[in-house]
């Protein structure tokens, strides 16, 4: 892409430099108005040469000069034709260079849009959840098994970062997430990814407030928890600080704006225990999808 950018720069430079010259030449020799202008110019020259020493117009001189001019034009008609053909060819080449430059520009735009679409469609695996009914003593409960995932910049993929098991009463569970969506411009450029982190587990018979907390405000949530080897450039302490800064930014309007946070909210997925595994993904456009 960088070499194409350089090539396009060179072509554009050529077009910019040769452009005005070609515009003038094309106007003069390849348009009716250009030829009319040339004709007027020649007429003025002949008229000027037709003035006698006293500065008065001499029809005889005018006639002579006109005939002479016509003959000169006639003798050099081959050169004129060849020059015109060359001008047409060069003009064609000039247009061709312009088209090549336009093509490179379009190609680069297409590549950029492809990357934009890819970034918008990119998903991050956050969590896998499996739930089933179990008997705890004589009470029917829901057993929830959670596998968390965190994005490793080193491996460029989502890797398991921890697991938990919970028991909760009810007929269906709600897997709650906190979602941080960043401005589209940042997502499109691939400068950041939307974030979602498991937040709360509750059920139809246990309110959100009384539900099981899946993150602690002080610590790094599982969904960001990485081994030292999977952290890029930062030390584990710096990484932890960065994550806590992002989490903290959502409560601070100016910091959120600085980081490009578009929306911050919560969503919870209702799941009827069936023993099936549900996988949750944060999306590039915002929000969570489940598969």
């Amino acid at each position, binding site marked *: 892409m960088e070499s194409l950018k350089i090539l396009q720069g060179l072509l554009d430079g050529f077009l910019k430099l040769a452009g005005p010259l070609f515009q003038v030449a094309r106007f003069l020799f390849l348009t009716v108005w250009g030829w009319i202008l040339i004709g007027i110019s020649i007429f003025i020259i002949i008229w000027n040469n037709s003035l006698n020493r006293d500065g008065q117009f001499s029809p005889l001189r005018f006639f002579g000069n006109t005939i002479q001019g016509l*003959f000169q034009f*006639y*003798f050099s*008609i*081959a*050169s004129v034709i060849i020059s015109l053909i060359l001008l047409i060819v060069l003009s064609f*080449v000039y247009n*061709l260079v312009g*088209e*090549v430059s*336009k*093509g490179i520009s*379009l*190609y680069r*735009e*297409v590549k950029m*849009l*492809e990357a*934009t*679409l890819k970034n*918008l*469609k990119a998903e991050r695996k956050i969590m896998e959840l499996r739930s089933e009914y179990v008997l705890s003593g004589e009470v029917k409960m829901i057993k929830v098994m959670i596998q968390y995932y965190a994005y490793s910049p080193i491996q460029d993929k989502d890797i398991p970062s921890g697991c938990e098991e919970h028991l909760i009463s*009810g007929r269906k569970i*709600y897997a709650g997430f*906190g*979602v941080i*969506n960043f401005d589209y411009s940042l997502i*499109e450029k691939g400068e950041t990814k939307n974030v979602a982190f498991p*937040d709360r587990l*509750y*059920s*139809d*018979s*246990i*309110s*959100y*407030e009384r539900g099981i907390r899946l993150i602690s405000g002080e610590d790094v949530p599982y969904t960001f928890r990485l081994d030292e080897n999977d952290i890029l450039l930062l030390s584990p302490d710096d990484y932890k600080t960065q994550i806590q800064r992002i*989490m903290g930014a959502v*409560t601070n309007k100016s910091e959120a704006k600085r980081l490009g946070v578009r*929306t*911050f*909210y*919560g*969503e*919870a*997925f*209702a*799941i*009827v225990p*069936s023993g*099936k595994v549900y996988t949750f993904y944060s*999306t*590039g*456009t*915002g*929000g*969570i*999808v*489940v*598969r």
Partner: protein
Amino acid sequence: MNGYGIRGNERSRPFITNEIIGVEVYMKKSGSIEKFLLVLFFLASAAVFIYLLNQSFLIRKINLEKAISYVKSKYTFAKIRVTSKKENTISFVLYILNQEGKTVAEQDFNMQGEEFFIGVKVLVLKKGDSSKAFAFPYSIYTDEIKPADAINITNLYVKSGFPLNYYNSSGMDRDYIFTIKEIFKKSFGEENFPMIRGAGLVIMDVSLHQSIFKTSTEGRTYEAIVHPNGSLEVE
């Protein structure tokens, strides 16, 4: 030849000058015409090739722009205006919007708790790379009220089995009404229906609420949005 370079004895070619003949002879001898025509042919081929290439890039660009615009498209299906928050009670107005952004139903709520929760059934129909999501808000509860005790709100905007949030003044033909009715019915097939994650059909039961760190603010209006892939957002 006279003084003007015209061959007086060549009456059949009176307008051909020495110069032209000279150029013709030179070009024929050196094969320049062939070379020149070859160059012209090459340039013309290059022009056609570049034109076709540019056209294909242009079509690809238009398609990508459409795809990006589609992926970023969204539909606000509900709004919540928080009117007051005091003494562990939240009061808010719920507005259900149709596809034209007009309010088709609204109701005031006064509930115990700090945060509103809006239960939504989302149905996604997929075909190839494209998908269409339908969102049906069905319940209202709070952080302190368990979902089993939620207030059902479908009666607010469903008339004769048709959910008015998919009312479309320009496209309300019988097929459209039937399809939306069926989609709505499918979403509420049974009370405890399992989540469906098929290749062409996804049904999810999602509750939306304001941030876990930053609670909703009195006087502010929040928009509930659905994206074509079925993901939800609160703005």
